[in-house]
């Protein structure tokens, strides 16, 4: 593995919050000494912030989704929408039948009451157990990624790994004179 490839591996681990603490501190020291690398890392962190800022809206239980899909399938069967009806009608009816069957099962398990919601995908990643809340630092000359991130990070109070990384990157960039 070349030095560049090794650096990319480390950068990926750092951005993903999967770098061990000691290695992370060393990498942040390297960022502080290398403004170009810090700017690269910061812009990539900004892209990740943009991705994670796309929220899921109000989360609904499995039963709610099943019920909604079932209703839509029924509506399509009854009121059909031209070409679409002929193309997907049979499959939708099958999906509706399955949905109804499993909806009953979900009901029986209390999912539709909201009292026992199924496991949902997590929000912003916090893969490192030792992650600590830290207020994001301000970059002196915000680039696009900082402006994109500002609203997201303020709403999460920098409590995610990405928040910590972003704060560290902002510090590194500032101390390195980049922007």
């Amino acid at each position, binding site marked *: *593995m070349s030095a560049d490839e090794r650096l*990319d*591996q480390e*950068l*990926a*681990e750092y*951005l993903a919050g*999967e770098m061990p603490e000691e290695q992370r501190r060393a990498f942040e020291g390297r960022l502080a000494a290398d*403004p170009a690398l810090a*700017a*690269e890392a910061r*812009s*990539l962190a*900004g*892209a*990740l912030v*943009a*991705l994670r*800022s*796309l*929220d*899921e*809206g109000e*989360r*609904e239980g*499995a039963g709610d*989704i*099943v019920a*909604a*899909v079932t209703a*839509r*399938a029924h509506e399509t069967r009854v009121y059909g929408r031209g070409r679409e009806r002929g193309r*997907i009608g049979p*499959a*939708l009816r*099958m*999906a509706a039948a*399955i*949905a109804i*069957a*499993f*909806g009953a099962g979900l009901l029986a398990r209390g999912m539709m009451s909201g009292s026992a919601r*199924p496991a*949902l*995908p*997590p*929000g*912003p*990643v*916090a*893969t490192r157990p030792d992650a600590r809340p830290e207020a994001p630092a301000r970059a002196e*000359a*915000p*680039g*696009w*990624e900082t*402006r*994109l991130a*500002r*609203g997201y990070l303020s709403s999460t109070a920098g409590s995610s790994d990405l928040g910590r990384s972003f704060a560290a990157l902002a510090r590194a960039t500032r101390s390195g004179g980049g922007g």
Partner: protein
Amino acid sequence: MTHESAQHEPRRGGAASGGLLAEMPSVYGWARRIVGRHDDAMDVVQEVAVRWIERAGDASPENPRAWLRRVTINRSIDALRRRGVRAAQPMNDAPEAGGSRGAGLLEGDDRDLLRMDVAAALGALSEMQRAVLVAKVFDGMTFDEVARELAIGPPTAKTHYLRAVRAVRDRLSRRWGPEGSLS
């Protein structure tokens, strides 16, 4: 262009609907992140359900969640493209660095624009890059978990991840940039 014919296709012999129903909230969540609107997300959920039935019959994929995530993201990107490019603001209409759109950038129309750009960026990735990135960002999986799911090595997963993030960054910087230090 998205493809849904790669790995983790449904195989015969499993229970068809268990995986789909159990993962429906996740399917909705993935779709909602991309398409933004509840009704559009429900359309995608419906399309994915149909796709599941059409492809699997009475079988289930080897890894239902991975299959559903991939198909959902692909369908969501297609849905957003179909919805159109009502937000087809010229790419050279970028805000100035440090300009007035700063703090409110993730509100309203800006959020829609950002969503369109993210979807376009995801759509331009390779299937593997997109799979790794979405598993990491939307599902919070570790590199080891992603590598196991996709039957690749962790270093390869990291490489795909970084390339994907760079591609998204490059795409976003076209509208939301310029970032002088990157050009």
